[in-house]
């Protein structure tokens, strides 16, 4: 051992310390970056006497995976909930004010008032106005639902583009990781980037990953479709230009496998894509069917009947009128085509009195043959029919037999049930996502205070090494002085 070797050791220590300091300052710089995993500069002995610094990246695969799946679940659920919330306001209005059910209630009231004083033509016009409100609620509801489906379709299209872009970025990040791993250089930055992309991808589809040799990562969706393997697999979707009731939406294909929609308010749909499909083809489509059934129920309840004559449309008619739509069978888009019979609508020259007397379909259907002013039987019968159970199509998802007014109320109940479940579970899934993110951050994130205390250690080491060099320098110069 000699003074020179002491000097070399001190020199090496200075080098190690500065390397450690640089890692530490990097940690501090990225303290608030949630995608950053803390690095530790560990000093290892490579050969007897030799020391080198190795950079280790804090990672917790288990927590990370948990965070990814919580993220997907929340993303799907919150997409569903916000969509349902939008639909609620667009179709039913605030506090259900513009819902078909409310409008039917007002129609019943107007009908009751007219039935109490059938000689008053104003009350007749009042019923027609109430009927127009019902028609407007149904027509507007249909338009709102189909607009919503078109919008959801557009969102799916954007989301698919985003996903494809993310997958191609992922390819670059993955390549960087592989090459860094192969060449033995620090892959930490590349890994950070790859994990960040993976989190974003998990927003759109639920993923599961496995890592092969050289840190090469393969992504599959939760149900096993390959999303990325060496190269990104294509996610394809053709948006539809517009929707009408009953048209099914196009499917999203990942690697030519269709993405399935979730079901229920506590949706099984993970990720934004499945959430959007559930909205477009599940909730919105069912709601449309229910509106169509309400429209059919109304047309049937107000049908004009006459002995040995076929039933024909009365107050409400539709594109297939004057025939009555078949009982118990859903007709797609009926809520969009229902209208108030022009024969009774005073604003287009009709006579509201026909509602009291019958005869919108000709003399054979006149019930009040004498034209008596206070004939109320027909009006009372219409009121009764609104409360009389009739069969509804099971395809619309709610009670098969009920009165049309109850059916409209049940439709609201069904929808609010979905909304409540979606809301409760969105809260729960959000909490889980926030909790797993926090756990992950605690495990792999930077604590500035800890880094600062490490910095103090490093400072001391640095000072000691510098002192060492100074001392050796002093000793050497003392020797040289003695010699010289």
């Amino acid at each position, binding site marked *: 051992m000699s003074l020179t070797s002491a000097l070399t050791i001190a020199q090496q220590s200075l080098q190690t310390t500065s390397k450690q300091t640089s890692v530490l300052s990097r940690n501090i710089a990225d303290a608030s970056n949630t995608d950053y995993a803390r690095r530790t500069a560990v000093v290892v002995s490579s050969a007897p006497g030799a020391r080198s610094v190795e950079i280790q990246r804090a990672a917790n695969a288990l927590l990370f995976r948990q965070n990814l799946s919580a993220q997907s679940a929340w993303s799907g659920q919150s997409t569903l909930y916000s969509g349902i919330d939008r639909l609620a306001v667009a179709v039913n209005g605030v506090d259900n004010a513009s819902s078909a*059910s409310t409008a039917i209630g007002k129609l019943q009231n107007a009908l009751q008032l007219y039935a109490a004083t059938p000689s008053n033509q104003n009350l007749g016009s009042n019923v027609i106005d109430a009927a127009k409100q019902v028609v407007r609620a149904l027509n507007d509801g249909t338009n709102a639902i189909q607009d919503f489906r078109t919008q959801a379709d557009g969102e799916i299209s954007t989301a698919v583009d985003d996903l494809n872009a993310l997958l191609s970025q992922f390819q670059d990040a993955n390549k960087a990781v592989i090459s860094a791993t192969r060449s033995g250089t620090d892959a930490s930055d590349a890994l950070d980037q790859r994990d960040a992309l993976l989190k974003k991808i998990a927003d759109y589809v639920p993923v599961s990953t496995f890592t092969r040799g050289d840190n090469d990562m393969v992504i599959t969706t939760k149900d096993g479709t390959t999303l990325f393997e060496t190269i990104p697999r294509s996610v394809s979707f053709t948006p539809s230009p517009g929707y009408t009731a009953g048209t099914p939406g196009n499917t999203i294909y990942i690697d030519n496998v269709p993405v399935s929609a979730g079901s229920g308010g506590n949706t099984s749909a993970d990720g934004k894509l499945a959430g959007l499909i559930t909205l477009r083809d599940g909730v919105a489509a069912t709601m449309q069917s229910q509106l169509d059934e309400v429209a059919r129920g109304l047309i049937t309840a107000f049908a004009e009947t006459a002995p040995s004559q076929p039933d024909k449309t009365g107050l409400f008619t539709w594109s297939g009128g004057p025939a009555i739509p078949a009982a118990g069978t859903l007709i797609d888009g009926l809520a969009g085509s229902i209208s108030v019979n022009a024969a009774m609508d005073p604003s287009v020259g009709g006579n509201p009195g026909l509602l009291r007397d019958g005869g919108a379909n000709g003399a054979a259907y006149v019930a009040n043959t004498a034209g008596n002013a206070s004939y109320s039987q027909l009006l009372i019968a219409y009121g009764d029919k609104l409360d009389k159970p009739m069969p509804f199509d099971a395809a619309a998802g709610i009670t098969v037999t009920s009165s049309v007014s109850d059916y409209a109320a049940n439709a609201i109940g069904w929808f*609010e049930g979905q909304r409540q479940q979606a809301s409760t579970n969105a809260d729960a899934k959000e909490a889980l996502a926030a909790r797993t993110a926090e756990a992950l951050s605690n495990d792999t994130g930077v*604590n500035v205070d800890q880094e600062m205390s490490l910095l103090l250690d490093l400072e001391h080491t640095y000072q000691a090494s510098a002192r060492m060099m100074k001392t050796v320098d002093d000793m050497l110069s003392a020797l040289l002085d003695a010699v010289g």
Partner: protein
Amino acid sequence: MKATSVSSSSLSNAARYQQMRMQAELVKATKESTTGTVADVGLALGARTSQAVTFSRDLDRLNVIIDSNSLVTARLSSTQDALGQLSDTAQNLLTALTAAGNSSSTITQQAGKAAVQQMTSILNASVNGEYLFAGTNTDVKPIDDFTAAGSPAKAAFDASFTSYFGFNQNAPQAANITAAQMDGFITSNVVPQFMGAGWQANWSNATDQQIVSRISLGETTQTSVSANEDGIRKLAMAAAMVTGLLSGNLSQEAKTTVVGRAQSMVGEALGGIGQLQAETGLAEKRVSDASDRMKTQVDLFERHILDLEGVDPAEAATRVADLTQHIETSFALTARLQQMSLLNYLT
């Protein structure tokens, strides 16, 4: 290296998520404590929202039916009133007829005429623009005025006299009509004019069909009286006979027959009108019972709706206070946490 650790970012974000939740909750609680009902019925009730919707719709309907029942009640009580007046008219006529033996036939005839006029004006009364006794034909005056000039009823009455006897009431031959002849005339010609098809042809525009009203969610009933009821026809017949036959040149014998027949007819009419009054009273009772029942239902429904949608205002207010306090604490803690850093001690 460390058993449990906490990262700086989760330390500074720790309270953020909770704060967000609490603030959302605070908005809800504030709304609930001011309105007394849940902030979002749909979210609070879920699938049971249909109950709330049905309840409030039925509540509206009940209120509308209670309102329309007050119209029906007004019609029925006017009808009852009018029937009472008819009964008085009949009673007066009966008094005049009873006294007919002691007074001149002109006085009796005047009494008959007054009865016809009173009856016509009572039966032609209208409420709310609807003729009370018109059945369902409420926009047409139900009864023809027998005493007015050009009355078809009077013309038909006179024509039947002329065709039966071959001369009119004022002809000198009328003095020869015997009691039996007069009786025959009344039975075969006068009675069909009132109790048969002649009534609808000459006297009445009312329909036999009466106004039907819905008086509760599932109950309908007849809520008017038609001028075609037997009691009214009989009163009209008695009054018309007295008016139309006592004025002329008839023999005392024939006049006595007329008065006798009229007397018994008014007696029957009184019975008939009494019956109508009872029926109307029953209908009034049904309507008022239905209204009372519905008012009870309204109370019940309001309570149900309150049970479903209401919140305890005291609880909501406490929640607001609690949340405000929590949020303030959380703010204070966040500020303290931000200050807490090793950096402050490294100089």
